[in-house]
């Protein structure tokens, strides 16, 4: 494997791991900090100052930033399937930490997501065009 391809692959995996875990724990803290009842618009604002909700929001900011970095070199059609492993981890976190009931139908959907992730990551490159070509295509489409 050429050094440039290896570097890109390593960078993609490291960034994808940050994207997935910040998404999983961000959503987990958001869910666990949300009260069952929010009546007024002010309630929606004050709930943001709860420590667990704030932590969830901060992790989701990290998720957005890391995903933007990942999208700067990897294809959208690669990033979305690969990071969707987060849905699987969110379901597991919901089951283990929040004691949610996951029906066999949901587990089947989760298994299908995992199969899709394996299909996309197995041997495909995160980038089908060079960064130069991507920038030209994006600026050309805007004109």
């Amino acid at each position: 494997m050429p050094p440039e391809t290896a570097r890109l692959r390593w960078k993609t995996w490291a960034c994808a791991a940050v994207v997935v875990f910040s998404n999983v724990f961000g959503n987990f803290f958001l869910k666990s900090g949300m009260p069952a009842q929010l009546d007024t618009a002010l309630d929606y604002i004050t709930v943001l100052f709860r420590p667990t909700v704030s932590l969830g929001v901060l992790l989701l900011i990290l998720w957005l930033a890391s995903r933007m970095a990942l999208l700067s070199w990897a294809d959208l059609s690669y990033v979305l399937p690969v990071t969707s492993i987060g849905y699987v981890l969110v379901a597991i976190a919901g089951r283990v930490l929040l004691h949610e009931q996951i029906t066999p139908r949901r587990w089947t959907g989760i298994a299908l997501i995992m199969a899709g992730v394996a299909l996309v990551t197995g041997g495909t490159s995160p980038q089908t065009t060079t960064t130069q070509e991507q920038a030209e295509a994006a600026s050309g489409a805007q004109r």
Partner: protein
Amino acid sequence: MKWLLIGIIVAATTAGEVLQAKGMRQHGEIHDFRPGALGRVLSVLARNWLVTASVAAMAVSFSPISDCSRWPS
């Protein structure tokens, strides 16, 4: 109401994804992850309308998600 909120989440998320991918593609690969360099990247991205529109779309999708977080599992 539930399906309306889900529809808003799906539409806003899809718009956000596509705009963000296009904006970041326009920016090019991020090589330097030191804090100063990331700050410079952020200031460049803040002036890219595709990226700002994508963040707005993500914010639109976030509020129904907060609401859905209160639904029983």
